[in-house]
């Protein structure tokens, strides 16, 4: 961070942020970013010299008007030179961001992709005439509050405002040009500087470009300010009035059609806001021309913070809650400037900026760093899906830690095989042992910031359809530390189940695994309301199970696994939910048996998908499962009279009350049932796996003993 940086920011803060408020609303953020942008560039508030970066080595056309001549109208000349970096300042450009608009400065900028001599002369040179015709420009010499040197602009408009002269200038220009190139056109005047009142350059009779003439700057500012008061109003109507600026709190002339970087404010479609009187819009959105100009300046920085993903864009706008000092401004600017919109898709800006500031300004990052989050669908039809201010990384990190603890915890032991192979399943495949704690936390945090955490369990949304994507609302709530309701989650989970169910294969058990990982993480982080804790009781340590007794008997392994999975408040405290879960487990286990031992084409779980199950359907599924379990046990010469007695015993206890009398909500029941099915489907494969492990441990132990 160089001192020059800090000084430039000091100047900008002194000029435009004297009120010292910390940003609260979106306009505050936009204006503050404008201050950063002004501090970081040499352009000041109104100029946009950096827009000419793409024009360097192109040409600039100078229309020269000699005001020392008695008849300036006949003394004009045109010169063409190569545009170099050192001339840019002299041109004093202020670009109008509207594509077809005339630029605010007298200097008019041609097409970025270059113009032919013909199109340049006819389109851009003739814009000089338009510029001369604007009331706001002419006010420097026509109005009561004109500029003392207004006569210079008047003399220029006399020449360029004449159609015949302008046509001749255009013809001469066209002849001087060749080929297609990036071009701008400006005006230089020759005068005796002692005739100027507002001037601080070298004295004498000389040629002056716009930068050397404060009156040109004033004309530009008036035109630019006018544009913020009459845009889209129509006719010569204007929206402007005296009032208090919403951002800086001071009295000023307010403009009713300020720049709106996110496209959230426009008077163009009055039916969009019934009762909006276009010429009175300055009352609805009280900002001064200066603040409006800051909004415009902010655009590039605002755009840096966007993460576009799946049809939605999320802006994560960093700011500080304390007073803005030049040092803070510099640190913030650097952090935002280093973002890359393409990269943001993979590395969420909120994480990148936080880590950056934590490294370079740790105290500031910890105490004052906040984010304004704004989520909208990508597209012209502007609509805010979710918005929150004063968001920190705290909740994302808490949730990330909860996610890692969940994945490393008993629900997903051993080796996460409870719900099938984790490869290629978001959340489940997060490495909880891998590359070091910081990297693990960042990976998990990233999933939360990206929305991948929510996406893993929630219903899929059509990205082409404009509307609320509730997944992004959920992201916002979590980042802001607001709990989600369990009932909402169950609804999402079963909708997602429907997304995944194709009618011929069971829904992969990994889906239930991801949803459980999500639910349990949210529960650990205190971000779910309406259910008892989801994480297993603290005494449940499956990993030590093998050390205790190392069972090698499949039935025992299965029973212990079930027992410990059930040992969590979610399934202990509500007998109905427990019953629904156990029903799912039995159906899952019987279905596995049907598929693997009996070659049944459509096992029971496919015929009783969880997203459609009712209390009555659940009773019927249980009845069928029990019948099958009995028949198979008899036919396959099983040692007991029924398959999976460990489930059956507990299930019959739980079903003492008829499910049709249950008060458990439909989606709660369905989720418990789907979780049970997924667990049941994996019961035998996991048991085989554990037996394999235990047997090899046993033989190792035996081998050790033999040594």
């Amino acid at each position, binding site marked *: 961070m160089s001192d020059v940086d800090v000084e430039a920011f000091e100047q900008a803060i002194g000029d435009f942020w004297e009120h010292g*408020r910390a940003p609260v609303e979106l306009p505050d953020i936009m204006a503050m970013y404008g201050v950063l942008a002004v501090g970081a560039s040499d352009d000041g508030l109104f100029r946009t010299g950096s827009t000419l970066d793409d024009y360097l080595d192109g040409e600039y056309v100078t229309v020269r008007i000699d005001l020392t001549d008695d008849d300036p109208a006949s003394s004009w000349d045109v010169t063409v030179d190569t545009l170099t970096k050192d001339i840019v300042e002299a041109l004093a450009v202020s670009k109008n961001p509207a594509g077809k608009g005339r630029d605010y400065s007298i200097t008019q900028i041609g097409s970025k992709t270059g113009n032919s001599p013909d199109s340049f002369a006819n389109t851009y040179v003739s814009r000089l005439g338009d510029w001369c015709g604007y009331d706001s420009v002419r006010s420097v010499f026509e109005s009561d509050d004109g500029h003392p040197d207004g006569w210079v602009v008047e003399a220029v408009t006399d020449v360029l405002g004449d159609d015949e002269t302008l046509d001749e200038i255009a013809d001469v220009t066209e002849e001087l040009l060749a080929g297609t190139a990036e071009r701008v056109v400006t005006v230089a005047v020759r005068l005796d500087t002692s005739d100027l009142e507002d001037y601080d350059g070298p004295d004498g009779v000389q040629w002056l470009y716009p930068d050397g003439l404060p009156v040109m700057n004033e004309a530009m500012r008036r035109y630019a300010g006018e544009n913020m008061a009459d845009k889209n109003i129509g006719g010569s109507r204007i929206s402007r009035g*005296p*009032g208090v600026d*919403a951002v800086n709190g001071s009295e000023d002339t307010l403009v009713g059609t300020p720049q709106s970087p996110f496209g959230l404010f426009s008077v163009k479609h009055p039916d969009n806001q019934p009762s909006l009187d276009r010429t009175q819009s300055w009352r609805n959105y009280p900002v001064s021309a200066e603040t409006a100009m800051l909004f415009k300046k902010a655009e590039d920085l605002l755009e840096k913070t966007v993460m576009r993903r799946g049809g939605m864009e999320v802006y994560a706008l960093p700011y500080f*809650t304390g007073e803005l000092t030049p040092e803070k401004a510099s640190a913030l600017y650097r952090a935002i400037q280093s973002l890359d919109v393409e990269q943001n898709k993979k590395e969420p800006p909120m994480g990148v900026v936080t880590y950056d500031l934590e490294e370079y300004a740790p105290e500031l990052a910890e105490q004052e760093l906040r984010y304004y989050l704004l989520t909208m669908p990508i597209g012209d039809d502007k609509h805010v899906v979710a918005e929150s201010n004063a968001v920190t990384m705290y909740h994302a990190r808490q949730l990330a830690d909860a996610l890692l603890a969940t994945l490393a915890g008993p629900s997903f032991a051993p080796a996460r095989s409870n719900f099938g192979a984790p490869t290629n399943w978001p959340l489940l495949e997060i490495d909880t042992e891998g590359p070091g704690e910081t990297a693990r936390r960042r990976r998990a945090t990233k999933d939360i910031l990206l929305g991948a955490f929510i996406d893993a369990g929630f219903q899929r949304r059509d990205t082409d359809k404009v509307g609320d994507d509730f997944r992004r609302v959920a992201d916002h709530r979590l980042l802001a530390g*607001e709990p989600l309701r369990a009932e909402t989650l169950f609804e999402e989970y079963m909708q997602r189940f429907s997304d995944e169910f194709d009618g011929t294969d069971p829904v992969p058990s990994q889906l239930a695994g991801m949803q459980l990982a999500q639910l349990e993480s949210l529960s650990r982080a205190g971000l779910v309301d309406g259910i008892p804790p989801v994480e297993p009781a603290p005494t449940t340590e499956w990993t030590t199970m093998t050390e205790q007794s190392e069972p090698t008997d499949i039935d025992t392994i299965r029973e212990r696994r079930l027992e410990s999975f059930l040992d969590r408040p979610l399934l202990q405290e509500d007998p109905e939910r427990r019953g629904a879960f156990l029903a799912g487990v039995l159906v899952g286990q019987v279905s596995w048996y049907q598929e693997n031992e009996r070659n049944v084409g459509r096992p029971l779980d496919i015929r009783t998908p969880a997203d459609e199950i009712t209390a009555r359907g659940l009773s019927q599924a249980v009845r069928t499962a029990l019948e099958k379990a009995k028949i198979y046990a008899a036919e396959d010469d099983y040692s007991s009279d029924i398959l999976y007695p460990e489930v059956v015993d507990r299930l019959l206890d739980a079903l003492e009350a008829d499910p049709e009398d249950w008060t458990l909500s439909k989606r709660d029941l369905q989720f418990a049932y789907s979780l049970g099915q997924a667990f049941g489907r994996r019961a035998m494969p996991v048991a085989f796996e554990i037996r394999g492990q235990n047997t090899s441990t046993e033989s190792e132990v035996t081998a050790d003993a033999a040594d």
Partner: protein
Amino acid sequence: MTPTIDSDGIPDVCLSLEIRADWGHFKKYGRTATKQTFDVIPRTTAAGLLAAIVGAPRDSYYETFGEGQSAVAITPMADLRSLNIPTTGVGTDPDAAASQRAGSRRSRSIMYQDTTQHRQIHNYEVLINPAYRIDVAVENESFYTDLRQHLEAGTSTYPPSMGLSEYLASVEYLGEHQVERLPESEPVDSVVPVPLADTIPQPGVAYRVERSPAIMEQHAGGRRTTRLDDLVYTPHAEDSVRFDAENVHAASVDDATVVFR
């Protein structure tokens, strides 16, 4: 008895009421394409609601609620939750929408709105079950007396609503109370007009902040905002705000701890 407001903006006596509704919407400034709501009823909206109860005509009550002559404390009484509701609207701009003609030149011809087309979806962010306690004192004697009489009688001149006329609000009068000044940095139930940086963190308590219009005045056939406040509050009704700021004083009203502004 009419209240007197001291130089710190604290009244000696105030009227307390609670307003509730199923829905609420207090549109933020700077938006037309979308309609977001403030979480907390802005002070100017509260003034309008009280003026509706009293029956004060449009543009007549801004001075009553002006700086130094009024004191209002607003306390969220329910958790602050919102959701987006899409509505379908038909434009009302006479230039754009009134395009159908009926009748002929010989008989009377009327122009009316074509409501079969040009429907647009407007998304409104609305508050769910908003409820606020309002403690209010104004030095305008007749307004104060009228308001007290209406509150005591449970009447109102115009129907009070939560920001939009379709979100009717119920009003419960909590009584007229003496106000007592409290020592510095007392935790406060109401919204507090301080920057976020002046709050004192508490474990498990989230602060939110918003900037909303506080005072307005009549101006050239309309009205304009003359002061906006940064307000800190907590989204959960049972949490309170702790802060450390000069010139912001807590007061106790009945069983509530509030900051008047």
